[in-house]
């Protein structure tokens, strides 16, 4: 069986790896470099989240898969089992900490509630007086482009754009055609070029990285206020997000903007994002930043990815719409697709992610 995968981001790479293991003859097409899209821009936080039961199912399944894969990944993939710390600034957010604690504990996810002082000890550079936090010790961090490269290391990758799609066949920008028994559309935000009706919107994000400060930051930190901002599906927002890298560098996020079309740095938005970070960690302001960049998340109205049979086709499948969690959920995405192709049951229900769903949100 021949499979053609459109897109060499982390999702395309994970699908290629999975299908190759199932015995498919896999070809991946991408006009750019491996992992050069959103995958190069993303923070690489491997997180379990619970915005919805379906999101929890996908992220927790995928995290288990990352843990298995971590054994095999090369050091360049920079797997760092640093854990996540959700920061509660006030009592209201602390209530959310307790809710999450209950939710995750019931489902066997290792979590711990930190009070104000424990939090300060865990992250000495946090502003004093935070209400507390939730430590999710199984979360981690990776460097996505090298993970993608490794997943594709024995797959044939053609440097070309797919310009047309038909049943069992794709046409490349240079005019040649590739036939396949299975076609997987994993080209992130660009999936709308091939499926204009997909409810995908690019959501721009800014990031900044510092010089090396080993030990300065210990966990991936996220403010719980993030839930309020990330939930909005219209307004531009920023949230405090700081990540320790295996190199000792610190990666600062994050912003979410709709309607932005060009990838240039938007200075006021970057400034807002950094100001937010200083509110949580004032000491960050004095650290040396060496680079900034932006990326686009492929956002869906119900904040769940699109995984499964493309409407109207029998050989074409979709794997896109992973918004800000595509690194985390790439491996589970690939498993769900492979199960569907092999006519197997999956470990988690596939229905919430199927392309034909209603996409309604709360």
């Amino acid at each position, binding site marked *: 069986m021949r499979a053609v995968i459109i897109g060499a981001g982390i999702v395309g790479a994970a699908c290629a790896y999975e299908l190759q293991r199932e015995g498919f003859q896999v070809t991946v097409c991408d006009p*750019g*470099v*491996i*992992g*050069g899209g959103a995958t*190069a821009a993303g923070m690489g936080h491997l997180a379990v989240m619970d915005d919805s039961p379906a999101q929890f199912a996908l992220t927790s399944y995928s995290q288990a898969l990352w843990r298995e894969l971590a054994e095999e990944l090369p050091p*360049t993939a920079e797997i760092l089992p640093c854990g996540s710390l959700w920061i509660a600034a006030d009592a209201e957010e602390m209530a959310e900490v307790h809710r999450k604690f209950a939710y995750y504990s019931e489902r066997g996810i290792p979590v711990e509630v930190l009070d104000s002082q424990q939090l300060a000890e865990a992250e000495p550079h946090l502003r004093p007086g935070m209400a507390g936090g939730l430590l999710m010790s199984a979360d981690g961090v990776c460097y996505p*482009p*090298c993970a993608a*490269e490794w997943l594709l290391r024995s797959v044939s990758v053609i440097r070309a754009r797919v310009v047309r799609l038909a049943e069992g066949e794709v046409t490349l920008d240079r005019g040649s055609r590739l036939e396949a028994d299975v076609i997987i559309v994993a080209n992130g935000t660009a999936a709308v070029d091939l499926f204009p009706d997909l409810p995908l919107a690019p959501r721009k994000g800014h990031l*900044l990285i*510092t*010089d090396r400060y080993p030990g300065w930051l210990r966990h991936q930190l996220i403010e719980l206020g993030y839930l309020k901002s990330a939930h909005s599906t219209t307004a*531009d927002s920023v949230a405090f997000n700081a990540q320790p890298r295996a190199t000792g560098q610190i990666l*600062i996020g994050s912003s979410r903007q709709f309607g932005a079309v060009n990838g*240039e*740095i938007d*200075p*006021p938005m*970057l*400034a*807002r994002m*950094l*100001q937010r*970070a*200083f509110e949580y960690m004032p000491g*960050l*302001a*004095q*650290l*040396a*930043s*060496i*680079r*900034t*960049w932006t990326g686009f998340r492929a956002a869906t109205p119900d904040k769940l990815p699109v995984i499964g049979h493309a409407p109207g086709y029998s050989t074409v499948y979709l794997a896109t719409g992973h918004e800000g969690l595509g690194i985390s959920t790439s491996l589970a995405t690939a498993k769900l697709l492979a199960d569907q192709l092999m006519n197997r049951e999956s470990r988690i229900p596939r229905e919430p992610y199927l392309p034909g769903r209603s996409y309604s949100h709360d």
Partner: protein
Amino acid sequence: MTDLLIIGAGPAGIAAAVTAAEQGASVTVIDDNHAPGGQIWRGEFHGKPWYDRFQKVKLNIISDARVIAVHGNAVVIEQGAAARTIHWNKVILATGARELFLPFPGWTLPGVTGVGGLQALVKSGLVIRNKRVAVAGSGPLLLAAAAYLRAKGADLVMIAEQVPTAALMRFGMELRKHPKKLKQAAALQLQLLGVPYVRDCYVEHATGKGKLETLQFRQGSKTFTEEVDYAAIAYGFTPETELAAAFGCEILAHGVWVDKRQQTSIQNVYCAGESTGIGGVDVALLEGELAGLAACRKPTKHLLPLLAREQHFASLLNQTFSPRPGLKHLCTADTIVCRCEDVTYQVLRQQPDSRTAKLQTRCGMGPCQGRICGPANTFLFGWEQGSVRPPILPARMATLALSMTQETSS
């Protein structure tokens, strides 16, 4: 708000600033150095061309400050622990050049520096007296720097110029058409009397424990070694175009594109000096003057013949002293090419392009932002150089945050 903002206070920036101020413009000059003078007059501007005129005009000079971001018609500057924005009507970019470093085994050892690099360190207080120094690489700066170092008491072991003898002879013939330069060259030779000037010769590798001890030179089929304390090695210059790129200016292979009035592809953004192409101090001064006049809407035609003559000389230099292709083969497998991230030649050789190299090996991702390895990779592998985003030079996060919020619209 300033009428005219000039970024860089080397010869080009100084000439532009003085000229424009003489025309009545209110001029602000920002420079990353401690005092005006740029690379050539670093801290020793007194008594140099333009110094008297410079003394007579009113300029707002902001030293020890660097532009780290551009936002509309404002620039963000960082000065020590302070940050601010400056708005402008017109801007002249005069950011100059940096040295071209080509990797070879041992080039990362302490004691191996640039040519202008060692000179700059000595100008900023390094005591070089009685240190054994070799100067190598390519170009007339080898002589100028060697003469300077000798005057400061260095024990100059030798000067190694990679250009083959025949090409140097041809250059010598052409030099006769430029009597002023010929005189300068003769003066330098006098100052360097007794120091071996070896042609067709380059450093093949450097060794030492923890710091530089020995250099191995190659001249044709011959090799020889020298014990030294410092090796000043560079292969000419590469223009500093990052700031112009941040302004959105079109950049060509040799530098920032400008029209006959030094205006870049962006209106009201001018560029002068080495950032438009390597031309030496006389071209820089003329271009600066031209840009200063142009920014004040004054005629500039009278300067064009002079500039053409200087540019002719500059192109002669660039042709003669361009690094020989053989230098591409100096690296061994484990020679480090990207010094910030310690990426080796062997690893880079396997990468198809610069973007992949960046994403997969971290090459160019360190604090120099590819300023050192980028031009080396262009020479070694023909790779294009990367895009430019803020911060243009590493900066405190506070600088990126504070100064930009003043612009916040929403």
